[in-house]
């Protein structure tokens, strides 16, 4: 059968819709096959459906009236690190509103895990005892593993140590031999300062005469490295997120092992010498040389009185180790992770230090923020903590879906009753909308980690009504045109032109509602708004790309075009006057046109 040229346009649009659907599901398929994390054919379920614990915590900064934007960001970072460190797979940490943090942990986390989450966090300064780069894959397999402290460096250090106080070199010796057995390709500590991204140096603003180091119970003492600690250091795997967890929980007066933030370097650190409370300010800026800015980016660190004294003692001791030694460096830890470990170039006694190194403006900014906002201990107050059993969630989902299907069937039945065969178009449109919604939710689950929650499911079910309404508006408009006497073929076009306007403005309002709710609210409201917005967009796609083209094509068929009794567009049922040419100059007219008043010709006796 030759194609009706009238159908070409609508068919093209239908083909585009089919392509769109194929692309959507093709993308899910592709993501499933090639994606880094394989996509699933089912939507990702939110916590309330899949079961788990939902905690909403509010960071509280001790000694400050409010919580600033940056502090919340930092708190989120901390929580995220803790969650990752807790070994919980697929836990989600997100910001809720201005100050709250939402944590969703699948399964049933233990009380200890929960306790660890709400532990408070603070910046601390510890001297570096041993530093070693971490290399998961040796770049040069032929190269034999090297001691973290090669003989020359070690001897140098030992000499320094012996100068200050009598030391037992055995610990270092032992440590070194142990290290030699590690398979991790390790590099000299001296070298690590150069290769590490944390490469940084300390300079003083106002150089002052050196004070001789004197402490006997030296925090930098390598004596603290017990064989256990040494073993711990060797076993420390910076790729393993639990490391920071253990570090953060370690007591402050003992030596610990730690990893750098980027995981490229690991350390044995002495006890805490300063805490963030003693930092009064930190800022990133350009380094000031003698003749103006040098163009290098630096981070300025200012201590309060107490901090100034402590820092002066620390730097004077560390400076004595001389450049190149691991012990010359000190580490700044935030929540169990070394954020930077600069070496000391000078003794700083005025309480104002500057950290320079390979900073970009951004990295310096980040570090300054970490130093500044980590200064005060952040503790976490649990706002809500909800344990959702997976059976309950699953049951809710099952019943919700059943309710949705029943609702959909009722809508189908009603539209068949109202629109007869045209109701089939409604059914088709709603099915396509459901298919697209399913695809979109599944795909977003993979790409944006969108999770379907109960509120989202409700939003989707409620959207059936909104979507169906577009068809109702459209069909009623067509009917209006048919009532006005237009043949269906033209009624579809004129009816569409008018219905389109109504559909567009009402969907625009729905989108505004969804957008406002999405951006201004939180958690479940957000999920609901997202579902509402998504279905509104899908509604537009379906009405424009499926319903209208289909109706246009159907209008060209005999069944619909001539208004069959069951087509739902039967002009007689709609009260239009059928005027069909019967041939031989005769028309089939069930009733003569009603006139409100006699025509001029009738009154005046006809045209002469």
């Amino acid at each position: 059968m030759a194609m009706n040229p009238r159908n070409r346009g609508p068919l093209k649009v239908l083909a585009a819709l089919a392509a769109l659907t194929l692309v959507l599901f093709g993308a899910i398929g592709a993501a499933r096959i090639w994606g880094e994390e394989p996509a699933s054919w089912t939507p990702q379920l939110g916590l309330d459906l899949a079961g788990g614990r939902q905690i909403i915590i509010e960071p509280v900064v001790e000694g400050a009236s409010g919580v600033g934007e940056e502090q919340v960001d930092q708190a989120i970072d901390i929580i995220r690190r803790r969650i990752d460190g807790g070994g919980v797979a697929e836990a989600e940490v997100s910001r809720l509103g201005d100050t709250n943090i939402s944590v969703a942990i699948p399964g049933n986390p233990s009380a200890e895990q929960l306790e660890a989450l709400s532990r408070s966090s603070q910046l601390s300064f510890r001297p570096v005892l041993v530093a070693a780069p971490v290399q998961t894959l040796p770049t040069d397999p032929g190269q034999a593993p090297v001691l973290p402290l090669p003989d020359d460096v070690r001897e140098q250090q030992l000499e320094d140590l012996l100068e200050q106080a009598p030391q037992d070199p055995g610990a270092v010796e032992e440590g070194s031999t142990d290290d030699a057995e590690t398979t991790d390709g390790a590099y000299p500590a001296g070298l690590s300062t150069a290769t590490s991204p944390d490469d940084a140096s300390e300079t003083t603003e106002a150089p002052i005469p050196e004070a001789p180091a004197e402490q006997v119970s030296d925090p930098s003492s390598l004596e603290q490295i017990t064989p256990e600690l040494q073993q711990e250091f060797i076993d420390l795997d910076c790729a393993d997120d639990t490391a920071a967890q253990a570090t953060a929980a370690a007591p402050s007066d003992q030596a610990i092992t730690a990893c750098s933030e980027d995981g490229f370097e690991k350390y044995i650190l002495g006890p805490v010498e300063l805490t963030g409370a003693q930092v009064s300010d930190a800022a990133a800026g350009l380094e000031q040389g003698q003749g103006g800015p040098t163009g290098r980016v630096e981070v300025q660190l200012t201590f309060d009185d107490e901090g100034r004294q402590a820092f002066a003692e620390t730097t004077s001791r560390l400076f004595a180790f001389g450049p190149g030694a691991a012990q010359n460096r000190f580490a700044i830890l935030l929540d169990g992770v070394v954020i930077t470990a600069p070496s000391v170039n000078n003794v700083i006694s005025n309480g104002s230090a500057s950290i320079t190194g390979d900073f970009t403006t951004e990295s310096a900014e980040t570090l300054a923020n970490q130093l500044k906002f980590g200064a005060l201990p952040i503790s976490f107050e649990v706002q809500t903590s909800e344990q959702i059993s997976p059976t309950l969630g699953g049951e809710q989902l099952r019943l919700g879906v059943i309710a949705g299907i029943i609702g959909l069937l009722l809508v189908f039945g009603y539209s068949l009753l109202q629109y007869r065969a045209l109701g089939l178009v409604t059914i088709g449109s709603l099915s396509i909308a459901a298919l697209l919604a399913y695809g979109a939710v599944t795909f977003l689950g993979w790409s944006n980690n969108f999770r379907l929650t109960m509120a989202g499911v409700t939003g989707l079910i409620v959207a059936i009504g909104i979507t169906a309404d577009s068809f109702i508006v459209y069909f009623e408009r067509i009917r209006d045109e048919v009532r006005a006497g237009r043949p269906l073929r033209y009624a579809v076009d004129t009816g569409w032109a008018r219905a389109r306007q109504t559909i567009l403005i009402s969907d625009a309002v729905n989108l505004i509602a969804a957008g406002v709710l999405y951006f201004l609210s939180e958690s479940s409201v957000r999920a609901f708004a997202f579902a509402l917005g998504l279905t509104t967009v899908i509604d537009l796609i379906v009405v424009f790309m499926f319903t209208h083209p289909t109706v246009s094509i159907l209008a060209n068929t005999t069944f619909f075009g001539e208004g069959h009794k069951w087509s739902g567009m039967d002009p007689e049922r709609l009260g239009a006057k059928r005027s069909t040419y019967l041939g031989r100059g005769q028309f089939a007219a069930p009733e003569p046109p009603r006139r409100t008043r006699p025509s001029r010709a009738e009154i005046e006796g006809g045209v002469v």
Partner: protein
Amino acid sequence: MASFAQLGNDLYTGKRSFDIVGRRKLWYTVSAVLIVVSLIGLFGRGINFGIEFRGGSELRVSSVSDLSDYEARASEAVAVEAPEAVATVTLVGSDTIRVQTGELPNQTAEAVRTDLAEAFGVPDSEVTSSFVGPSWGETVTTKAVQALIVFLLLVSLVLAIYFRTWKMAAAALVALLHDLAFTVGIYALLGIEVSPASMIGFLTILGYSIYDTIVVFDKVRENTEQAMDTRRMTYAEAANRAVNQTIIRSINTSVVALLPVGTILVVGIVFIGPGTLLDLAAALFIGIAVGTYSSIFVATPLLVHLREGEDDIQALDKAATKRATRRREHEAQGEEGSPTGEDVDATTVGGGATSTSAAPGQGTARQVHPYAQRGPRNQPKRPPKSRR
């Protein structure tokens, strides 16, 4: 259904018409009563805020097989661990018990959880505990109110631009607030618990209400613009016609929107029990129903009321009334004056309106215009070829 379609036709042509705009005093009174009742609910009884707003601990025991005397057993289990806590025990769905108490410390909550599991003979995993801080609900409410204000501002702007008159936006907003006040009032009056999910429901009602009103107003605008051109109808008449023409759509839309929501409501009440699904559905059900009412009976009469004072509307009304009076006079005259006795078929003037019973397809010759019947130059008529 035939009568429904017939009603639709009649409403469309104006053959049958409900005087909705004209009886606006009645609708205003009805709405005023509704609002007063909901205000009594709001301020008299107050809103029953859920645990999310009050703060406290909630424990749910699911898959309970033996439900006898569950209240006492649950209270007892709570009292062992936390003697001072007042426990509210409710049955949710068919086999879940919900126990709400004041704030319990972590350890106590854990202990109560085990006790409850023991008391009802279910495994520990079937008992879930949640804790809600008192400020949580407050945050949600603040956000909701913010969202409401922003939404109202944006929507009024969009509507004012789209309809090119702020009065339509104002009328739509009044209808919207009417729906919102009524829904919240019903909640307060019936003592239904307000949870954050209900809050979402209230916010969604806004969208629905506006949506419904827009569809009606779109038709009102179309009709009134036409009236402005033809000067055949007053503004009120055109608006009333529009409402009548969209009534069928409004009914269909509401039925279609209420069907899924109603299903959730029924499934929620029977099987699921209090929760996001039920709270949302309940709010939406009430909201959609009252939203349909307000778009027809509140928004349009109010719009006409607001616009009646405008100069061009008054000019239109004057012209249309004058035209109608003239036409009535003319018709009366035409009836008095004897018809000019033309040889037209007997079924002509005025008869058409009543002769709808004529069956289609019978092939009765269509009435041809008198001019065509006579033919040019009044030549004598020739019988059709078949009769020759």
